[in-house]
């Protein structure tokens, strides 16, 4: 409508000034959508590349390797499911999985209870709160090898401080690290001491999300502290606990450094965890079996984790 009313003179007058104005928006219109389209991909590209290189590629590579008998050099032979068949019929695989299962039972339930109790206490105290929080995290950041060495010295059968204390009250010495009955609990204790601070931090952050009004209301209704803990704190911490549970399950089934340093998987392979068993295949250059082992371990851990997620969700 407006163009029809413009006179030719005006048209001539406006052309030089209008041309750049009208061209520029046209260019922008062409390029902007492309840039907009590409921008998110460009932003996520570094992550995608890192993810592909360090997660997806190793996953597929390992999967491929698990169907071969590769020993680290020369050609690999495609052997189908032989590695999986070997592992699933091997007593070693099941016994190490069993060792990890027992360690899980010794560690995770106790750790969850301890973490909730410690977190509630830390949340309640007013004085030196920062100090206590740091104190509980210190074991988590202490180098594992140093802790392991301390454990070896503390729990030595003949010269350890723990047996010295038992002796002082007339109890006989215990072969903490050299008998298959005690090695697992001793290792579990190390893991508990080392990692409970980390779970406490997660639970503590969950505690701080809980509305204080709920406690006040419960208090007005006459609920005591234990009742509040059981009926308010624990249910509202469910998501933090589920997160910790899955993380710690992964950690226990992948546990490697603790038995490697403290017990070397002994005595009698009683502390050879699933993670250490996997490592043994790799150090023997039996890479195909190691790859199959890692996949079986992933399946087991995923199944256990999903089970927890489902159980805890069902109660939501």
């Amino acid at each position: 409508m407006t163009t029809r009313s413009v006179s030719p003179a005006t048209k001539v007058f406006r052309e030089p000034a209008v041309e750049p104005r009208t061209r520029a928006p046209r260019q922008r219109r062409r390029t902007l959508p492309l840039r907009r389209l590409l921008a998110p991909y460009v932003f996520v590209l570094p992550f995608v590349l890192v993810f592909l290189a360090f997660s997806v590629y190793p996953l597929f590579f390992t999967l491929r390797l698990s169907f071969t008998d590769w020993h680290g050099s020369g050609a690999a032979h495609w052997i189908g499911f032989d590695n999986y068949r070997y592992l699933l019929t091997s007593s070693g695989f099941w016994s190490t999985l069993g060792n990890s299962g027992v360690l899980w039972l010794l560690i995770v339930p106790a750790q969850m209870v301890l973490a909730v109790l410690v977190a509630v206490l830390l949340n309640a105290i007013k004085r030196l709160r920062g100090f206590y929080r740091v104190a509980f995290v210190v074991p988590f950041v202490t180098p594992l090898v140093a802790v392991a060495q301390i454990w070896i010295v503390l729990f030595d059968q003949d010269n350890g401080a723990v047996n010295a204390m038992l002796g002082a009250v007339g109890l006989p010495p215990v072969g903490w690290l050299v008998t298959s009955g005690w090695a697992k609990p001793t290792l579990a204790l190390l893991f508990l001491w080392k990692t409970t601070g980390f779970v406490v931090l997660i639970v503590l952050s969950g505690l701080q999300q809980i509305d204080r009004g709920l406690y006040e209301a419960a208090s007005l209704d006459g609920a005591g502290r234990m009742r509040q803990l059981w009926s308010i704190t624990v249910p509202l911490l469910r998501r933090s606990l589920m997160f910790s549970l899955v993380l710690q399950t992964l950690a226990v089934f992948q546990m490697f450094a603790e038995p490697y340093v403290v017990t070397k998987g002994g005595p009698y392979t009683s502390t050879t965890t699933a993670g250490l068993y996997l490592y043994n295949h790799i150090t023997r250059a039996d890479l195909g079996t190691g790859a199959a082992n890692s996949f079986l371990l992933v399946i087991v851990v995923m199944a256990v984790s999903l089970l927890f997620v489902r159980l805890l969700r069902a109660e939501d």
Partner: protein
Amino acid sequence: MNPTLRRSGRTARLLPRRGTAVVAAALLVTGLSACGPDISSDAPASGNAVLQASSDEAPKGEITVWDRSGDLYKVFDAAIKKFTAKYPGVTVKHEAVDIDSKLQNTLITGTDVPDGVFLDDAKVGGYVSHLWNLKDVLAPYTKDIAKQKVDVNTVNGGIYGVPFDLDPGLLFYNAKALSAAGIDPNGIKTYDDLLAAAKKYQQFKPSAKPIHLEQNAFNSQLQLEMFASQLGTGLAGPDGKLRLDSPQYHQILTWLDTVRKEGLGTRAEYLKPSDVSALDSADEVFYPWAIWFDFAPQQQLTATKGDWRAMPLPAWTAGGARSGAMGGSSFVIPKDAKNPKLSWLFYRFLMFDQAGYTGVYGPNAVYPGGLNTSIPAYQPAADPAKPLFRPIDAMGGQDVWKTAVEAGREIPGGAPIPAWWSGAVDYLGTDLQKMLDGALTPQQVIDKAGKDIQTNLIDRK
């Protein structure tokens, strides 16, 4: 125009794009995962590259050599200065590395591969496909190297390591404690004599459990192999077949089981607090072990420091060999090394040149009296009359060099170390521990460990 919205809320235009992205990612990943080893059904697992010596009169270049950290690293570091004084054109980058954790990955990926690596003899067999066969360059020296060391580095006729140390087994004993009990160690010539001496000592000191019974699976298998080497055998023969079910292993295991049954053994891990305590209280007075046990009186023991002596191992039958090999290391040269010929030149100097081996074994800043935890595998360097290390004060001034060199000459050959030796610890080492705790008989160890090793290690290679 608004794009058609699906029930899921996704646009029809987005789905093909996502599909394309997924397909592209899958193709990329599949392509990447094909970067691994070739998969074939008939290609040989390894080649057999034989290293040839360089004829260069004035060699030039740089080599990177790996040693494990600790005292030996410092000793080699000092010896390197002597090498570079002789070959000024060669630069040696000496790195202290956790070889066990780094070597395998480095060799598999071919990244930053060193030119030479210090490696336990028990592990050489596991890497041969990545190493140069040194048969030709070692040929002028082979006849002068302890046969046991040539055997442990030999796989399928190739020699894959430059032998470094010889680690003869010796019987370490607390001379002061035995003297107090009226026991003459010179009378211990067979393992039956050792049992009799242990019983006599226990009568003198009822709290004593005189003979060391190793509680670590790896070390106990290593010690078992020392006894076996003394009898001229080992876990596998040159053909790779298992030799565990044999009269020799039966004899050794039965003897160890007897020590346990008769309450004559201290169950402890090599030089862990329990062990040191039993040694220092003179409850444990006999230690059949490699020469490197002499580290204990020098560095670990306090109350009994100076009371210890070494003698040849007892023989299994009267007149038999009085020593076997326990442990040991060699130098290997990876096929992917940048300068393998310079690396050989370096190790040849270190092991077979007088300036080199005296630099390693002779007095140095780390060991002022000389490196005394092993003896050279190169026999011209191991002359009883020309000691490379001085008598050891912590062992009452005993000339351990002479004792060890003479014992080393008695080690029979014929005991190669199979590639799966370390893996056997999970089976044989563990079962041996069970036997020493009274849970298995010697025959059960032989049967069970033999079956497990065959199934899990030999059949899967």
